[in-house]
């Protein structure tokens, strides 16, 4: 299957061996979108690779920016002001809403609904992208985070609009769930399909909603305390079966938690500067050393590992992409299921090929 297939979420290829319609072997083939991101970043300055991180996982550019900025901040010893920390949480959670709602839309596309859930998801996505565009100047490639803070301070109007959107979001989720969650075909096609045990998931290094769907309580927002997440009151939803249906429910529940975080963030947003005065964007030369910045992205642990030799370019630049690592157990999840199920299982893993191949 693939690399040109409507359900492979981009240019992804699976070599599937079948017995009748049952999968007996599945070999994923990557590399159709290998764009040399890591090598390009090693030959450009720290600031210049910021736009490339947007194009890694092109549904969640804001969290990619943040994870990269975290790594550079560790390397350069920068501290981020409180207001910028809150703004980062706001952007990350809005991104999570975009990513998860799109994923659910795509998942239903893979299940065979022609278009409707995706239409609903993209309707909400457009509203959030309007906010991103007003702030960063771009819809998808939001180049907003900087080392030591954020690029611009949102206006009170922006904050009011964002707050109104977030307050309305649960209504969209209710509508979405009414349409999808109890759907008979959906239940028949996803419950018990693509089971992943907690032990397997931990052994393979799987993170994010897929790990939590298998019942493992591991969320970097709680474990690592990145940003100001410890200041927010939210729950980490957990699944019990580790099947496709649980992975779907994880996304819906996480969106509801994101709304809670956002509401708290808008309530508590402090005044103050948004950039560390020590931060220097142009001619930034950190001391020799290494740093690993990681973050609970919408897809799982997104990490950037940087080695500096004191020059304006990173000596070594490496991304830990959640999509690729979550994809490693695709064969185990698909074995014994039909080829139509493999499409749904792949959809529930939530891959973005820009991040898989880099």
């Amino acid at each position: 299957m693939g690399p040109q297939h409507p359900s492979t979420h981009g240019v992804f290829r699976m070599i599937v061996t079948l017995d009748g319609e049952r999968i007996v072997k599945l070999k994923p083939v990557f590399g159709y979108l290998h764009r040399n991101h890591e090598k390009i970043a090693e030959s450009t300055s720290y600031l210049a690779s910021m736009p490339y991180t947007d194009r890694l996982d092109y549904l969640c550019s804001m969290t990619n920016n943040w994870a990269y900025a975290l790594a550079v901040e560790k390397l350069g010893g920068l501290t981020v002001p409180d207001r910028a920390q809150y703004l980062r949480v706001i952007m990350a959670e809005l991104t999570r809403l975009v990513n998860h709602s799109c994923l659910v839309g795509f998942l239903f596309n893979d299940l065979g609904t022609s278009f409707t859930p995706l239409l609903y998801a993209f309707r909400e996505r457009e509203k959030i992208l309007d906010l991103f565009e007003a702030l960063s100047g771009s819809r998808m490639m939001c180049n907003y985070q900087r080392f030591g803070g954020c690029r611009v301070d949102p206006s009170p109007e922006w904050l009011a609009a964002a707050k109104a959107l977030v307050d309305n979001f649960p209504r969209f989720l209710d509508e979405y769930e009414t349409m999808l969650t109890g759907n008979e075909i959906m239940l028949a096609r996803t419950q018990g399909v693509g089971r992943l045990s907690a032990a397997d998931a931990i052994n393979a290094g799987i993170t994010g909603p897929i790990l939590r769907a298998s019942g493992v309580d591991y969320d970097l927002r709680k474990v690592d305390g990145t940003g100001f997440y410890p200041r927010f009151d939210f729950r980490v939803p957990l699944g019990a079966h580790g099947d496709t249906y649980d992975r779907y429910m994880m996304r819906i529940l996480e969106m509801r938690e994101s709304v809670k975080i956002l509401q708290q963030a808008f309530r508590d947003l402090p005044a103050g500067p948004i950039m560390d005065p020590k931060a220097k964007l142009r001619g930034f030369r950190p001391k020799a050393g290494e740093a690993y910045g990681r973050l609970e992205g919408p897809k799982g642990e997104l990490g950037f590992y940087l080695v500096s030799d004191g020059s304006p370019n990173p000596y070594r630049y490496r991304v830990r992409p959640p999509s690729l690592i979550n994809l490693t157990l695709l064969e185990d999840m698909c074995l014994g299921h039909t080829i139509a199920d493999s499409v749904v299982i792949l959809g529930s893993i939530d891959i973005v090929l820009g991040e898989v191949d880099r």
Partner: protein
Amino acid sequence: MSDAEREDLRRHGILLTSLEELYNWGRSNSIWPLQFGLACCAIEMIAAATARFDIARFGAEIFRPSPRQADLMIVSGTVTKKMAPLVVRLWNQMPEPKYCIAMGACAISGGPFKQGYNVLKGIDRFIPVDIYIPGCPPRPEALLHGLTQLQEKIKAERLAGPDTARHLRPENPGEFPIPDYGAHDLQPPNNPALFSPPSLPRKP
């Protein structure tokens, strides 16, 4: 008959037209694009199909999963050297008349990833491109603008005479050579009928 007279008749409900105009009108307003995304631009292509932008207004909403049913290829995203042969194969499988839109900086020239060893510096080295849409990624409105420009192009095509449309002239190929993986690069690295690298004059 002058255009003014024809317009006058049209206002009275009498439509005078040529076969060519009718044919082009029908085709330009029912373009079937190939459901085929490569990277970031593909998300904006999907966004163009959804409610806010609604590509259906231009009669081009039927994204076909099979190239054999499509007449427009939107090359949306970065074409790598691993993917390029497959893009050309898909293009060859599309029936004539067919059109190609290069959407975004990567499809046009390699874009921000141009310096990468694995990124094709423009899909127009292997297949003929009708419309180029700049941007990284272009907004859905830009894609719609590109689509309307393509419609204008189709409407201006001639069915006969010296400036006959490309697909009606037998000497023009509909199929293009599929590049193969060579030792260092694709073989051939470009289609000489479509693109040849500029010669670099060297000082003696």
